[in-house]
């Protein structure tokens, strides 16, 4: 893919993001931030590619593998922790619905 194609994704995603996120009520700003935070852990894909594809053949690729390993750990913390925290936050909001009757 070319740089310009990638730029196209970038610009269109920015507009989609703007349209959706301006509609989110202030009540949900923390879960939004936390959920978006988890999405930014998508960099895990990049981490997997560089951690997995570099072998131990040369000194420099050993460095790349080590960097990839650290990146995998950090991105996974971001993804798993981010989604779990968002979920427990939203559970608290959801419990309010069930409480309606009492």
């Amino acid at each position, binding site marked *: 893919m070319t740089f310009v194609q*990638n730029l196209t994704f970038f610009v269109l995603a920015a507009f989609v993001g703007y349209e959706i996120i301006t509609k989110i009520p202030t009540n949900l700003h923390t879960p939004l931030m936390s959920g978006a935070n988890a999405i930014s852990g998508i960099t895990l894909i990049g981490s997997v590619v560089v951690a997995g594809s570099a072998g131990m053949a040369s000194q420099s690729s050993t460095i790349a593998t080590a960097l990839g390993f650290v990146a995998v750990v950090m991105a996974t913390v971001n993804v798993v922790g981010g989604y779990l925290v968002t*979920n427990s936050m939203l559970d608290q909001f959801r419990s309010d619905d069930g409480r309606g009757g009492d």
Partner: protein
Amino acid sequence: MVAVLGGLPDSVLAFIYLVAGVMFIQGLRDMTHPRTAPRGNLISAGGMALAVGITVLVTEILSPVLLFAGLLVGAAVGGWLAVTVETTEMPQLVGLFNGFGGGASALVAGAELIGMFDAGSFQLGVTATAALAGLIGSVTFWGSLVAAGKLHGVVDDSAVRYDGEQAVKALFLVLAVLAGLHLVVRPTLIGSVPLAAWVPSYWLLVAAASILGVLLVIPIGGADMPVVIALLNSYSGLAAATTGFVLDNSVLIIAGTLVGASGLILTVIMCESMNRSLANVFFGGIGEESESDDEMEDIYEGNITTTSPEEVEMTLDVADRVVIVPGYGMAVAQAQHAVAELAELLDEAGVDVEFGIHPVAGRMPGHMNVLLAEADVPYEKLRDLEEINPTFSQTDVVIVIGANDVVNPSANEAGSGPLAGMPILDVGEARTVIVNKRSLSPGFSGVPNPLFARDNTNMLFGDGKETMQELVNVYKENH
């Protein structure tokens, strides 16, 4: 380990990434309502699992043990942090996770550059976006660590200002940009000497950007943290998006950009809620000692009325409508459960109870909403600034707990003070205002609050949790 799905055509992989991208978008769309939000989070997580899963399957993994060890360790640490966190520690945890995403992006870009060095080919678009990813990712990582440290109380959370501050920051920014330019223009050489295989100019950039990240957040005081956390959130997305350019990966670009947009919008909302520009938050001097004690005495002397839980209970007894205004002090005192119980008691007694929540109350966007939701306050009772302000004139009692600057009427007066022009909750319009605070000390802005001296304001001094619990007990005895 040979790639399990190594024969998968690139177009199929791109299609699966597209599906994941759509799931992220739908996940965010569902966040527009509390009822659909949990589903949205699951859809988003599903998109992530799909994207990561397919990537693991198609990549030819030369060191599978290492990769899976990394995934396991990360999942264990992230899961443990998420499960054991207290609601009051949520802001720093969100900040910390943010930083990890940004840091990972910077490392991935660096590792990819090393891989390209081995292959002997650098492309202009790749080195330029790698430099950006390194810059944004490193600033995000270190900035987030400092922010989380301030929120957790392990780093001084006051506004740390020093002489020549802006010049020092500019120096490290210039250093990072120069290293980035070198990476773009001469990726393999320093002068005419071949560069080492680990691409030192990139790591020089990372080092300069790391110091810059620390320096940017250190001077920012606690009450400005909602802006900082939202902006770093945006950066972690942008770091992922730029890493997507480096790796030529569509789903990284789409997902990263969505997060970048989301964080940026929250940042703008937070800044508007304080009537300050982003530049002012980062480089301005709020939080310095701007008022003398004499001036505070002038305003407060002889004009402060104090009250007791018993008196407040009597006032509440004849009220038809009560609005509770929480601030960061409620979070510090962990008073949200007592406050929620009081609101429930009033509600059962037929009083119309609502919460008025300022957008920058607390330490992250929506902080008060999460605390009150945890204490089982129905979200229908939580009103934002625009909704609640017109109702204060028909409100009998306002209870302000642990809030100060967001209810300071001097923000409405002309002038150039730190609060000038900031939209506030006009609680003074109500018939009676009860302010629960530990003392008359000013809020983060350092500006004394004339609200406390008004005739219709009664000060209920004491720790938030204890005082509210006492009020709840007195209320129960009499009903």
